[in-house]
């Protein structure tokens, strides 16, 4: 344990300042200190991707980023995707195509899907599967998740992450 250090992050457009231990994981800052419980923890080893969020325009597994590394950064979590009461096209597609069952991996899947479409607005099935390799789902067999991500791509609006 060592002395706490100040961290300032913008999460879903709001500024948050906290003092944290240097070893504190970003996912715990988000979940336990700031109340953004959409990012989930499913493993200890960066395998499952349930904690995936967007940090400075890139999808990261927030269990593998220290809170201090996010200092001064901008974070978008799944809570920040919908705008003015309207679902993000990726959220809409997951609902429409039954891309979730228990919902635990879903925030990470949605964030990974959004990140893929920023880089590749028209991914093939293989592209989607490769992009989601770091996100585990035990319920869906991925079938409807792949359908949802490709459908969101076809909707053509999913390439932008709201700041």
């Amino acid at each position, binding site marked *: *344990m060592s002395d706490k250090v100040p961290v300032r992050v913008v999460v879903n457009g709001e500024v948050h300042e906290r003092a944290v*231990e240097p*070893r*504190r994981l970003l996912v*715990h800052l988000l*979940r*336990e200190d700031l109340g*953004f*419980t*959409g*990012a*989930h*923890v*499913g*493993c*200890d*080893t960066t*395998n*499952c991707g*349930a904690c995936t969020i967007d940090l400075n325009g890139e999808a990261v597994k927030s269990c593998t980023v220290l809170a201090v590394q996010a200092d001064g950064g901008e974070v978008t*979590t*799944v*809570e920040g*995707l*919908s705008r003015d009461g309207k*679902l993000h096209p990726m*959220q809409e597609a*997951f*609902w*429409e195509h*039954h891309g*979730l*069952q*228990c*919902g*635990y*991996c*879903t*925030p990470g899947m*949605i964030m990974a899907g959004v990140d893929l479409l920023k880089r590749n607005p028209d991914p093939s*099935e293989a592209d*989607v*599967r*490769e992009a*989601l*390799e*770091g*996100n*585990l*789902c*035990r*319920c*869906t*067999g*991925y*079938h*409807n*998740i*792949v359908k949802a991500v490709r459908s969101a791509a076809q909707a053509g609006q999913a390439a932008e992450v709201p700041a």
Partner: protein
Amino acid sequence: MSVTEQPGTRGNGWVGQAIRRKEDPPLIKGQGNYVDDMTLPGMLHAVIVRSPEAHATISSIDKAGAEEHPAVVAVLTGEDLAADLAGPIPMVWAPPGVEIKTPEHWPLARGEVKHVGQAVAVVVGTDRYAIADAAEEVIVEYEPLPAVVDPEKALEDGSPLVWDDFGTNQTHEWGIAGGDAEGALRDAEVVVERRIVNHRVAGAPIEPRSSIGDPRGDGVTLYSSTQIPHIARFVLSGMLGMAEDKIRVVAPDVGGGFGAKLQVYGEEALVIAVARRLGRPVKWTETRSEHMATSHHGRDQIAYVTLGADREGKISAWKVRHVCDLGAYFQILTPFIPELGFPVVGGCYAIPNIKADFVGVFTNKFATDAVRGAGRPEQTHMVEVMMDQLADEVGISPVEVRRRNFIAKEQFPYETPLGIVYDSGDYHASLDKLLEHVDMNEFRREQGELRERGVYRGIGLSTYVEVCGLAPSRAVGPQGVGLQAAFWESAVVRVHPAGSATVYTGTSPHGQGHDTGFAQIAADRLGLDPANVEVLHGDTDQGPMGWGTYGSRSLAVGGESVGRAALKVQEKAKRICAAMLEAAPEDIELADGKFQVRGSADKSMTMVEIAGAAHIPPQELPTDIEPGLEETSFYDPENFVFPFGAHACVVDVDGETGKVEVVRWVAVDDCGPAINPMLIDGQVHGGVTHGIGQALYEQIVYDDEGQLVTGSFVDYALPTASEVPMFETDRTETPSPVNQLGVKGVGEAGTIAASPAVVNAVTDALKPLGITYMNMPLTPMRVWQAIEEARGGNGGGPARTEQGRDVGEHGQGAAGSGPTSPGEGGTP
């Protein structure tokens, strides 16, 4: 498709529609409420100190270092908490006439540890990170003892014992038989024997377990990621010596279960006991490493199976002896899970003589218990693999051998030699439908071409039947199979004064979609839109006792109960409507969402109007109609239900690396009339992927000293999106006569069907090399070793071990009369 029209179900025709899920909006917005998301005022965190030894006596525990830590509130051992617990974790199977050696299993160790990960002490404090540090300072001294890991060696004379007091590692033996299997085998023209290993796996939901004990006055609320909140209250009441009215159990959003949360775990009792002692809420959340070590495992059975047939491939006898590795302690159902497959021993085939024996074994591992399918995947894997072995032996195709042995449609209800009655089925129809999607002649032509180019492509079939809808209490309860429990299900349907409805179900979903499917069932019977039917579950304070979600029971028992309660409400609504419209109740029908006088559509009432009349009775209502509009159903089925289907798996095997790729999957499933086809497809996709996982990737491995080798998702490989194809699904609909809905379960069917289809496909692919059988998991190394050996090599340096386990002894092996690949099942 044939679909039965049940009375009073027309409503607006919601049943059968693929409407999207009511439960999704919060989940896709990050507004789910899983236990670890919850923070209660004054809440403390708990970390558990666990044994690094597989078998040892505890010589001392020094808590002083941890207790000095500023964030620590308490450090408690098994002895410290002895007075807070009234009883150990119960095991609830007491089969008549069979003794099961059952060790006491306490939430914290008392003087000895029997498996890696066993809880030894709990550290409670204000900060998760700090108490994890403090836990490192609990100094436990162990005197190691020899560990027993291999269940077959554990049964040998002279093996070290897991429990000295029992004098043996054998827990029990249980068997069932019908006809004369031994006699029929003596007379059989063809006998095929195999040693089929169904290895140990983990449930591995993506949400780890989490529990919060929240003391209130002389009672407590337990928030827990469980599939069985009501059973948990019942069991915890005994463990804690508290009356049930003092315990409320809440399962909020639960992030998958797959059987791993069909359990009452020591940690659930522990957080309650510690919270009550400290007078503050206490949360414990499992790490993934803890999950792999101490959430129960599944399968881990070695089956010696012998079938007898004639030269045309007609099976006359099936005999199997299972050696079941149960681990060191029992959880609530541990020794029963292998036997749970007994109703479907022999599968969907008319086999007149059957004998099945089960031997349970203690080892220094964590307990096995239910994992998706629980006993039926094991039976199905073995019978479906054996069908292909038999087909090879007698020289007919896998399709033909199945057709020659199927129970015929006309034979239903079909009583097996074991006295089990299969409710309904049409196995030929599902296989025929599968073959409409899969042109076998075309496949064989393509396979031949690919082989010439060095590509090993194979196809595997699985025509399964499974047993679910747990369960008729008389069949599985104390005087039946011997579970000290019952398996009816409750439902409450409450129509509110302004005409919307709330349904409470005693089942407890964790991803299946009950909120939507059950709303569809109720809506049709109430004349409402499912959007106005809220389905509640998972809170012992909200509704009557229920038995939870597992064993693909929720729809066939819980959904049926919802339907029955809704029909009772409908009957009362008709009486109210009749009084208001001056008609006879029997003349009121529900059509197009309205209660109307038969033949006079202009004389009608909506449920909104009827609900108003029920709650604020007008003068027209006779006084013998009670006010209110709410009914309860307790439904106990008269039989199990038996879903079935036909799956085909196509694989490509890389002859150089042994890597297996699943390139196509076709699934034809029959779970009776669909309530919501979208939900069925989702269950099949996930279920099949679970089975592919076991067949190709997943395995819990302990080394020879009982150390867990696969302690994280780095070593325990769940299938990713890249390991599975898009699934082609289709259905037939054969109603069950057991319930009014005609439905059967589908939550486990995919898993039950999948693993033999994969193994049969890989075997089919590698047949040109002379490989005829391999045990799961068909990892690249295992397949490569088999290929190397078949080609005359020795498989290279690491050939006989895999992840530290000797595959020659444990993982592989095909003994017996049938053809075997070189080096399998014996000396290399």
